[in-house]
């Protein structure tokens, strides 16, 4: 039986925004009720358009943001209301790899300082440096890179440093927030292969957040599709790709350009109308209602909840079978 590692229940993260003459209080509902279980040693992919709340979701799970409501359990312990002090032992078990390798490394620190900063201080300086060298070789860099500064590296190499930093504390769970989207195609594959290999060697669990669906499908065991702060569909990655139940997933998948001229020219594309609705004034009913080709009157009144629509397949749609 698969062991749940991270359990998220009813997670909400709202950001207050103040503007206007009278400082009218409004809420940006970035994450608005997400239920999710991530099992040990799996890769859970989270996809969706920009602004759908996938990054906020990842950050809230790590308690980099305080959740507005809901709970996060890590290995069965409720960490939702833990103080900074209480979180400390958990910080070394859950780590993050950031999107922008140019902004996420301190330009004034040497690589060895960046990587060793989070290490347990009970190790001697010498042990720490040994470990830095080990980690550098794990991520495919040379030992002498430890004495250099971030500006001396290319984007792909910097992302490797970011991964080495995350691995330095022996984590179990890593949130990968668009780790490859700023890299070139040939370098993306290097990083993705490395993440897969590390997972196997170190028994890691990933929450892989990205908007590149073909890459997410490639790396993930299960995929969750987010739209306006809510999960609209969860399924095994192949099942999701072959039999999407939610019309948004369907449209998202049909929009992927496929690197094969015969297939990509033959396929029928569902072109969505319009843009994503603002997460500040979310209309009642289904969030996808205005752009949906299946929309019926009931959709504008009643918000569909995530429910079972197949083996291990959850969908939030009133008409999942069409």
């Amino acid at each position: 039986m698969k062991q749940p590692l991270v359990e998220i229940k009813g997670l909400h993260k709202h950001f207050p925004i103040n503007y206007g003459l009278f400082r009218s209080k409004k809420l940006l509902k970035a994450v608005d009720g997400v239920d999710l279980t991530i099992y040990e040693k799996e890769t859970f992919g989270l996809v969706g358009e920009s602004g759908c709340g996938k990054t906020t979701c990842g950050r809230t799970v790590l308690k980099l943001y305080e959740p507005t409501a809901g709970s996060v359990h890590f290995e069965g312990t409720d960490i939702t209301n833990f103080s900074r002090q209480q979180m400390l032992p958990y910080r070394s078990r859950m780590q993050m790899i950031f999107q922008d390798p140019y902004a996420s490394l301190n330009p004034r620190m040497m690589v060895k300082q960046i990587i060793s900063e989070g290490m347990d201080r009970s190790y001697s300086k010498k042990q720490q440096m040994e470990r830095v060298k080990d980690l550098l070789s794990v991520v495919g860099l040379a030992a002498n890179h430890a004495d250099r500064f971030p500006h001396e590296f290319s984007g792909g190499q910097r992302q490797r440093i970011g991964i080495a930093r995350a691995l330095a504390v022996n984590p179990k769970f890593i949130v990968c927030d668009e780790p490859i989207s700023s890299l070139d195609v040939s370098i993306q594959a290097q990083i993705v292969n490395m993440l897969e290999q590390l997972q196997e060697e170190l028994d890691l669990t990933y929450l892989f957040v990205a908007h590149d669906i073909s890459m997410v499908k490639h790396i993930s065991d299960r995929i969750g599709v987010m739209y306006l702060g809510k999960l609209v569909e969860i399924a095994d990655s192949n099942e999701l790709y072959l039999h999407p139940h939610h019309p948004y997933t369907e449209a998202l998948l049909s929009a992927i350009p496929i690197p094969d001229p015969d297939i990509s020219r033959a396929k029928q594309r569902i072109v969505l109308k319009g843009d994503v609705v603002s997460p500040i004034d979310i209309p009642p009913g289904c969030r996808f209602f205005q752009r949906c080709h299946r929309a019926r009157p009931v959709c504008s009144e009643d918000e569909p909840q995530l429910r079972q629509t197949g083996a291990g397949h959850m969908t939030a749609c009133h008409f999942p079978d069409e």
Partner: protein
Amino acid sequence: MSKLLEVENLHTVFHTYAGTVQAVRGVSLSIEPGQVLGIVGESGCGKSVTMLSILGLLDEIGEVTKGNVTFDEKNLRDLSDKNLQHIRGNDIGMIFQDPMTSLNPAYRIGDQLTEHLRIHKKMDKKQAMAKARKILVEVGIPNPDQRLKQYPHEFSGGMRQRVMIAMALITEPKLLIADEPTTALDVTIQAQILEILKDLRKTHGTAIILITHDLGIVAEMCDSVCVMYGGKIVERAHVRDLYYTTRHPYTKGLLASVPNPHEVDGQKLTPIAGQPPDLINPPTGCPFAARCSYAMQMCTVSMPEVIRYENGAEVACFLHHRQVIEQKGRMI
């Protein structure tokens, strides 16, 4: 068929403090009217610089040192700035990568759209606005009358990119150069923009040069493709030819490093090891030799000549030279 644009042996350099960067090192390409040509390559391979050199839009440190650019039987390198501007305004449209920064935030969309018409076509304001309204409808922007009076910040990313396309199209150019037109956008919005570009070509017969690093977009949109690496074109072929009978190891590497969602299970990505070359001191041989798993000794010494095939494909790789095939057999 006659060529709309022909570039021969183009060289562009940038004079920087670190040294002279040889960004484009002998690029030749051509496009016929109504054709869609894709230019693929990683960042820094010179694809955008090639286009900027063609249009004479390089900034001060950039310089075209060699080569010919013929557009519509005119040599663009001989033209004065004023005549070149006339061509850019009337006959060649350009869409830039980042719709967030390519529009002037201080002017209304209507004013920015009609600037072209008023300068280059000498239209009066009323005529120009009517035309702008029509073109906004064409690129799928609802409520055009209201939209013309709005400022760029009132538009979303996808809408701004539509405005950019509208701006490039308003003078009905013969050639549209689109530099990574969808990179900053979400897939669903990307799909909308690609559909607009396809329609455009169908209805107006506009030739399009599409610069991208996304092999999926190339497969879907282009008739023929140039693959660039290290400031050179390493392979050029019709789109089906390129994907199904790939000739250059770099193209092969690129195709193997992107996941194809149609493969159900167990597709292993094969990345290209190493880093792109430093173009301040470019390698004397093939630029890809350092990362190429087929590399032979001669690859690092001299640049392979371009081999032309009957169907129009071209490849610059020693593996396809006759002597190599005779000695070692066909390896790729």
